[in-house]
């Protein structure tokens, strides 16, 4: 059971996991990439080992290790400045780590980050930008040729993507003639039209309206269904919850929680949330001491008690009734949003899983 739990990390230590040395990458702990059972079934496509990146006086990435397996949809979460983009830029070879190592695995060959992988990787940068005066078709064809396609193949792929994005009739129009949402679609296409093995999408949903967010979600799912591994960062927890196979949450340059959505929920023993409407003057804080409660959050007259999975609720409601004036009660499944907020905003030592 322990091996199936996510890794709640404090500092660079890994808790509750099995550690196995593997031959092809000395020093690499496969324990950090997930349960032992699944490792035998899937091949890693990206391995990051104890990577550190410093900028002047800031340590942007501080001893991060993770593995992304082929075919996975891996979400990298964390607040702004947590080090997600810095980590992604190192994976792409745009910057070099000050310590640690990164390796990419394509067709059985292990390569370091760099432009040799251009044809295998697609990248949607956080800092979006396209040549505004250039027609869509030419823009996409250019990006395809930079990723190793011939002009003819690139143009064919560009036309296919414009068709897919319902922009085929605007192929000759300059990028600046499109709405922001459509420009983002073109940008996404520019990152994917060469059919990469690994798509790295830095905040693909940012700046999109809900409809376009849904559209992008569908596109990324299709991409993964076609066999592309997706590593993405995002702040939209509802979308991440629906998309990610595995999630790593970063804070201050470190990964503080990693696992499947179910594992993350289990990490907080947070299968359910008890939501109570209470009187304005009530103080629900003492409920945090109850054995069944992982965390307590209050928003106005609403108190959310995140429950520990597997721990009997027992007399919780009776305790709550003694502490507060309960006007209404309902239960919810703990969302990724709850887990994210509790992980980064709560006290992991108190509310997190038991340390191994």
């Amino acid at each position: 059971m322990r091996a199936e739990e996510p890794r709640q990390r404090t500092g660079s230590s890994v808790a509750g996991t099995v550690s196995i040395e593997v031959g092809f990458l000395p020093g690499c702990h496969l324990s950090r990439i997930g349960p032992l059972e699944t490792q035998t079934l899937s091949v890693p496509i990206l391995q990051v080992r104890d990577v550190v990146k410093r900028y002047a006086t800031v340590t942007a990435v501080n001893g991060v290790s993770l593995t992304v397996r082929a075919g996975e949809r891996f979400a990298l979460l964390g607040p702004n400045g947590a080090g997600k983009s810095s980590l992604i830029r190192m994976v792409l070879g745009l910057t070099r780590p000050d310590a640690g190592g990164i390796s990419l695995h394509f067709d059985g060959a292990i390569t370091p980050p760099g432009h040799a992988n251009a044809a295998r990787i697609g990248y949607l940068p956080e800092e979006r930008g396209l040549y505004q005066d250039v027609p869509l078709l030419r823009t996409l064809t250019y990006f395809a040729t930079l990723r190793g396609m011939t002009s003819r193949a690139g143009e064919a792929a560009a036309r296919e993507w414009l068709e897919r994005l319902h922009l085929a009739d605007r192929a000759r129009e300059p990028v600046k003639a499109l709405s922001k949402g459509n420009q983002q679609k073109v940008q996404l296409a520019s990152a994917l039209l060469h059919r990469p093995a690994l798509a790295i999408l830095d905040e693909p949903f940012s700046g999109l309206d809900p409809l376009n967010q849904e559209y992008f979600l569908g596109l990324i799912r299709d991409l993964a269904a076609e066999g592309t591994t997706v590593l993405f960062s995002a702040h939209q927890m509802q979308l991440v919850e629906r998309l990610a196979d595995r999630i790593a949450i970063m804070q201050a340059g470190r990964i503080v929680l990693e696992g499947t959505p179910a594992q993350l929920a289990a990490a907080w023993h947070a299968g359910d949330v008890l939501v109570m409407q209470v009187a304005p003057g009530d103080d629900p804080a003492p409920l945090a001491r109850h054995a069944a409660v992982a965390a307590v959050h209050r928003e106005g007259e609403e108190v959310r008690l995140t429950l520990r999975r597997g721990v009997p609720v027992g007399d919780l409601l009776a305790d709550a009734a003694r502490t507060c004036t309960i006007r209404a009660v309902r239960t919810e499944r703990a969302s990724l949003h709850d887990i994210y907020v509790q992980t980064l905003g709560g006290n992991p030592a108190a509310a997190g899983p038991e340390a191994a």
Partner: protein
Amino acid sequence: MTHWQQVFSVARWEFLRFVKLRQQLISLAVMLGAGLVLGVAGYFIAKARAKPVKVALVAPERFDGAVPAVEGVTWQPAAPDEDALKRQLAAKTLDGYVVVASPDSARIVLREKAKWPTRVRDAFTAARREAAIRQSGITAGQFAALQATMAFETTYTKQKRDTDGADEAVAIGILVLVFAGVMGGAGYLFTGITGEKQLRVTDAILSAISPMAWLDGKILGQLGVAIVGIFNTVMSLGVLAAGAYVLFRDKFGPISIPMPGPAVVVQVLVLVLLGLVLWYALLGAFTSTIDDPNDSMRSTVLLLPMLPMYLAYLIKAKSDTPLAVGLSTFPLTSYAALPVRLATTTPAWWEFPVAVALLLGAIWLARLLGGRLFAAGVQMYGKEPSFREMLAALRTG
């Protein structure tokens, strides 16, 4: 995909971003149209100028000799009634009249300033001089001897090719074309790189290709843009010169266009193209450190390539001095200085190969260091790297 395949992809993109075939064809058509208009206008102006003027001659008997024939002037006998002549002037049936007052003086009256009075004055003066010679008994041969200057032969001990106006014209022409190439390509390079930084396309591109491949592609693409710029300049100047010739050929007479030999043309092309590559590598790398071209003092770097052209212009008249030879071999200036000297003098045989070798070495170094600076600068948003950071990038890559 190899480095050079990526370079050619970028070069093609850069070239087509700034050189649009349709616009080029329109520009060419406009230039040819302008040339045609100039030519037609010149034809009609020349035809109008060729029409002789009608000038009345009053009291020609007062002139001591035969009335001279004047080019473009038709003499009309007239009575000495100036009021009547002025009425004819007002009615434009007459272009002017000449009243001979004595053998030594005359008066010309015309509506407005024109060129024919000068010709009339010169013709009458010559006729009067001839008459005076005849009266004095001096023969034409004696008169010519009196006018002749003493013959001197000058010999220079230092070997130097004779320079004339044609050589200077070729030198200036080369400088104009180099200017067109440098400023056209450098300008686009500057706006291209700073624009890409502001559009935030750099991350997407650098995730696919190396900074060096990107810079190389830009240099190659802008070289193509510069060649088109030079071609356009040649066409524009050609059309302008042809139009001007049609307009003013009666003033200048026949014009021969000086053309350097094929060997000089090849050498000039090699030097100019290598020089452009060197300057583009330096400018591209430095431009990458500029965050916002509108408020960066570093934008003035764009003017630097003009300095070699200014120096080359200065040595045009003293093209065999040690300074001129030095500028002709120094990589940053040789692309402008040596072509000028090839037009105005005969440089030593070793100067061209040395200049080319030094240029190639400088290009290699500029690409190496420029690539490092470009890699650091082009990824820096929001602030410009300090000179210390730039030096660190140059050192470590």
